[in-house]
């Protein structure tokens, strides 16, 4: 009898200890879960802030005017809210940047993944990462004070053209250089994950390195390369400081990269630098501009997701 009681005591004591252990585990797990859930709150917060402020603006301006008006003068007495004006600046500068970054980034990726000796790759990869780590305001300084004068000189001597001091071309070119690391490093990762036996098969058929790289590895890695391009596009569309510094801040509906123009992001910076009262129409326009930007990048991200799904290859 006695021994059984003693054993019961021990068992119940153990159970009590285990129960306290469980409580601690539970508490820690819920804290960690809240940390993870926090990222969802951030997204909800972004959507809520952008939508709620934009909706107040859209009670004042119709969505149709917002999308079709060809003037953007929210701070003037004669106010117009045509987002196309800012959108054109964003699209032109991004196009220039991608015209630089996609060819150069792809060539660098193919070279590093298929051609480069081990040492070159080990040195070049961290170096490219450093290039991507330079603050964008420094690139803006570089575009405005080094690249623009150079382009002005070239335009004047070669074409007799007077390039304005602020232009989308110089900002776009520097932005392209800035994006190269994003494109090249993701593309290279995708190419290196293509299994070796596919390359070996290609070599066995007598193909050269170049033929293997272009006809076998690149198509096989296409979903990853497309993801890299999409990342590059999102970076270009969302880039702010290079454009705010080097492309000027005057809204200008143009498709010509030689002209100065404000982008969506540059407009937000311009308004934030002034002191607009909270709740004014001007204050709300930057949220509508931000919403447009967000929808634009979201669209590209969804496109990237679909591309990845469509072209994913299983080995």
């Amino acid at each position, binding site marked *: 009898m006695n021994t059984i009681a003693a054993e019961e005591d021990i068992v119940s004591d153990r159970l009590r200890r285990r129960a306290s252990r469980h409580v601690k*585990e539970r508490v820690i797990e819920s804290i960690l879960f809240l*940390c993870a859930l926090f*990222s969802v709150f951030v997204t909800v917060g972004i959507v809520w802030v952008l939508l709620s402020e934009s909706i107040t603006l859209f009670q004042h301006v119709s969505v149709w005017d917002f999308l079709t008006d060809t003037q953007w003068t929210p701070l003037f007495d004669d106010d117009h809210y045509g987002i196309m004006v800012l959108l054109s600046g964003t699209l032109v500068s991004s196009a220039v940047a991608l015209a630089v970054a996609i060819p150069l980034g792809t060539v660098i990726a193919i*070279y590093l993944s298929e051609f480069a000796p081990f040492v070159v790759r080990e040195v070049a990869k*961290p170096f490219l990462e450093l290039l991507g780590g330079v603050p964008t305001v420094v690139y803006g300084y570089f575009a405005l004070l080094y690249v623009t004068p150079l382009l002005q000189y070239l335009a004047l001597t070669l074409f007799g053209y007077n390039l304005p001091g602020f232009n989308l071309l110089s900002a776009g070119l520097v932005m392209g250089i800035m994006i190269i690391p994003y494109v090249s490093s993701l593309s290279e990762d995708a190419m290196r994950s293509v299994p070796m036996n596919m390359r070996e098969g290609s070599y066995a058929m007598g193909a050269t390195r170049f033929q293997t790289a272009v006809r076998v590895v690149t198509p096989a890695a296409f979903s990853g390369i497309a993801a890299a391009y999409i*990342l590059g596009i999102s970076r270009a569309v969302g880039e702010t400081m290079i454009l705010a510094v080097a492309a000027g801040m005057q809204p200008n509906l143009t498709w010509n990269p030689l002209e100065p123009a404000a982008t969506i992001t540059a407009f*937000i*910076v311009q308004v*934030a630098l002034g*002191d607009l009262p909270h709740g004014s129409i001007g204050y709300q326009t930057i949220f509508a501009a931000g919403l447009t930007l967000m929808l634009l990048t979201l669209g590209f991200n969804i496109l990237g997701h679909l591309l990845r799904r469509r072209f994913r290859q299983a080995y």
Partner: protein
Amino acid sequence: MLKQDIGEIRALILKHKRWDFMFAICGVVALMIGVLTFAALFVGMAIDGLPRLSWDFFTNFPSRRSEHAGILSAWVGTTLVMLVTAVAAIPVGVGAAVYLEEYAPKNILTDIIEINVTNLAGVPSIVYGLLALGLFVYTFGFGQSILSAGLTLGLLILPVVIVATRESIRSIPSVIREGAYALGATKWQTTADHILPYSAPGIMTGIIIGMARAIGETAPVITIGALTFIAFLPPAPIQRTFPFFNFDWLTSSFTVMPIQMFNWTSRPEAAFHENAAAAGLVLVFMTLSMNAMAIYVRYRLRKNIKW
């Protein structure tokens, strides 16, 4: 007949080899464009900015006269903002990553969180600025303060910290976990005593890269309304009298390094451009040394740990 064929084949091979060679040249040239641009940027900035770099440059406030202007308020502001960013982003980021890797059950909620983290990494930084302007500055009433800026940048680097921590945790072989469980350790004991210590170098790398990015971010901090001309310092965080710590600096207005540089760059006078170059040099030095530190930590990690 046969000899001619072999000759043709050799010519064909040679032609293809030439293509190989030409493409390798293209690759080197493309790499060089990146390298040379960076060199031009750095050398040009060094030529313009180095003469301005002196002790006074670090201990002077910004000024209307370019030769007296310095970056004291900017680097102090950057340091304090980074402090808030680190305190905000590191625990939440690491906690989220640990949950997703070690705890999360396979269900819809986990999927939503994972997709969400991926998407957050792609949100343009200026949108975080708008979020902070609407939420921190006006809804929560933190104002245009160091606290708002630090939290904003903390949200910005959260995905970076989460992704780096997850990758680091994922690279730990499951035998480590199984060994711990076999000895009766609970999940948290396993995580705290084994998973976190072993993945610490990888987590450090992620944190350093995230902080380096936060130091250089300009747009979100401008958006919440940081001032460009600040000629005073926030209250000191440490004081001689009880309770020794002072949190008034959290609500102080501030400026940071990239904003100071932006301000000098956008002035028309060339003398201020020299100041911008000097500030840029300091900024590039800060971010590059942090990135280099991250690369070094990763290199050491790869060298030392063999499972």
